[in-house]
């Protein structure tokens, strides 16, 4: 374990994993509340176009490595795409699921097309699709820390207002809240979260880290606040444990983290279901006289 912690690569990876694991479910809680659990997936796909666009700019300018602008490119395109799709959805031009379908298809197609124009191949996008935490640099960790800090500060700072909009948009409008501004903020935070998590779990699995811990937390928690706190802790926990496992075994970190989160969800659901199952030997109404007598046949 000391060997693991003394490795600079693992130190950087663990810092990134904790930040990503903690920040993702905070935004994911609002998305689940708005019934937009797949928004992160859509943003992840369109961020691929941003990665390729950053790559193209890097290649044109002659940067080394050519993907030096992949992260900024992903961030800009993801934020623009998320806010744009929220705007279109709010205007009622298309429904939320159609908007996300367009993000899915357009994002992948755009990414593959632009990376080809930039002189790369689709294989160059693989590390972004499935994560590549082994290549996390100090610069990446700084980016991750700054973006995760922004996501946590804004997401938690505006928690009350974002909750109101996510819970009941009609009431929020009738209260004079700046609904369009707040939903755009939420979309932008989701885009930033996707960008932050890109190197850890990959764009295809990023949404899982935002949503699955929330699904697990809501099985046991009984309030919005506790669900968010527990989900954040679960996200950070599975990210660290998943990363440690990949230190000992040659497995892809993103996939291990997501599988761990899903296993935890399954175990929690089964355990909670058993706990809540009523005990047939306990009288549910001990204060009332029994009006039915059960006679056991011999």
């Amino acid at each position, binding site marked *: 374990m000391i060997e693991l912690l003394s490795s600079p690569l693992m130190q950087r990876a663990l810092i990134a994993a904790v930040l990503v694991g903690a920040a993702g479910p905070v935004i994911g*809680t609002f998305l*689940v*509340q708005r*019934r937009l*659990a797949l928004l992160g997936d859509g943003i992840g796909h369109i961020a691929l176009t941003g990665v390729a666009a950053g790559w193209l700019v890097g290649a044109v300018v002659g940067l080394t490595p050519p993907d030096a602008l992949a992260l900024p490119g992903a961030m800009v395109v993801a934020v623009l795409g998320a806010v744009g799709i929220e705007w279109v959805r709010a205007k009622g031009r298309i429904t939320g699921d159609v908007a996300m379908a367009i993000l899915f298809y357009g994002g992948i197609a755009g990414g593959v097309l632009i990376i080809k124009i930039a002189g790369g191949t689709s294989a160059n996008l693989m590390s972004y699709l499935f994560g590549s935490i082994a290549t996390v640099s100090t610069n990446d960790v700084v980016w991750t820390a700054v973006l995760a800090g922004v996501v946590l500060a804004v997401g938690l700072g*505006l928690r*009350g*207002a974002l*909750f*109101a909009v*996510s*819970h*009941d948009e*009609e*009431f*929020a*409008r*009738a*209260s*004079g*809240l*700046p609904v369009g501004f707040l939903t755009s903020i939420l979309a932008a935070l989701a885009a930033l979260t996707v960008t932050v998590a890109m190197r850890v779990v990959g764009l295809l699995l990023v949404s899982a880290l935002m949503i699955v811990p*929330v699904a697990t937390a*809501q099985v046991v*928690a*009984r*309030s*919005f*606040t*506790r*669900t968010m706190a527990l989900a954040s802790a679960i996200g950070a926990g599975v990210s660290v444990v998943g990363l440690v496992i990949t230190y000992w075994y040659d497995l892809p970190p993103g996939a291990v983290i997501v599988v761990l989160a899903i296993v935890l969800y399954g175990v929690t659901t089964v355990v909670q279901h058993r706990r809540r199952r009523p005990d047939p030997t306990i009288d549910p109404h001990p204060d009332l006289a029994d009006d039915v007598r059960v006679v056991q046949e011999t």
Partner: protein
Amino acid sequence: MSARAGTVLSTRGVHVELGGRQILMDVDLTVHPGEVVALLGANGSGKSTLVRAALGVVPVSRGEVHLFDSPLSAAPWHRVGYVPQRVPAVSGVPTTACEVVRAGLLSGRRLRPGTKAQALAALDAMGMAHLARRPVQEMSGGQQQRVLIARALVREPDLLVLDEPTTGIDLGTIETFVATIDRMRRAGTAVVVVLHETEAFAALLDRAVVLRHGRVVHDGPPPPARAEHAGPQHEHTHPHPEPAEPEGPLTLDIVGGDA
């Protein structure tokens, strides 16, 4: 809860078009402080659209809306309480009644929710304080509706807008709720309430505005709270002829009995 002079709510020549269909046409409505106004009409007549347009939830295609003599862009939103028609309390994430009610204190640029003590007081007014920590997902439809009413009451509004607030609520709670509305009315709060039948609110109503096919067809004294007004398809066009008293003794026809 200080009511000020002037109008609380005013719409002038309001038109609303949704999905290419005219829902409201040339609707004028004025509500004064302390007034209790019922909006009546058959299903699809535009009652809910009118209150949603008045509160900026749906856009007005033509006409003007003022709250407390201010356009919606500058309205004092903290003085407005709203109970929507639907029950949106059931969502994926467990949410306590207290959390829902605390969100009721957010308004305009005030982006911080209210305190637990404020939420508990509002829940107590609806007889729900003991369920403050229970997730609304585990509540009955009537209990969820009471939480939404508490969310509107927590603002101590000068204008309370209620869209069919008693749907799914038991009689005892309706009486408590009406008593609360009466206290607020006496303190100067104006109330606009969308109703299908006026019986529960009959003693409080100052005026009734009746809508038919998106137009106001009556603005005056409320109709008598009789059974003929209770059906959701009742048009509420007035004046109604008083029902004729039956002549002679009442007879009871037994249908389907053995001869």
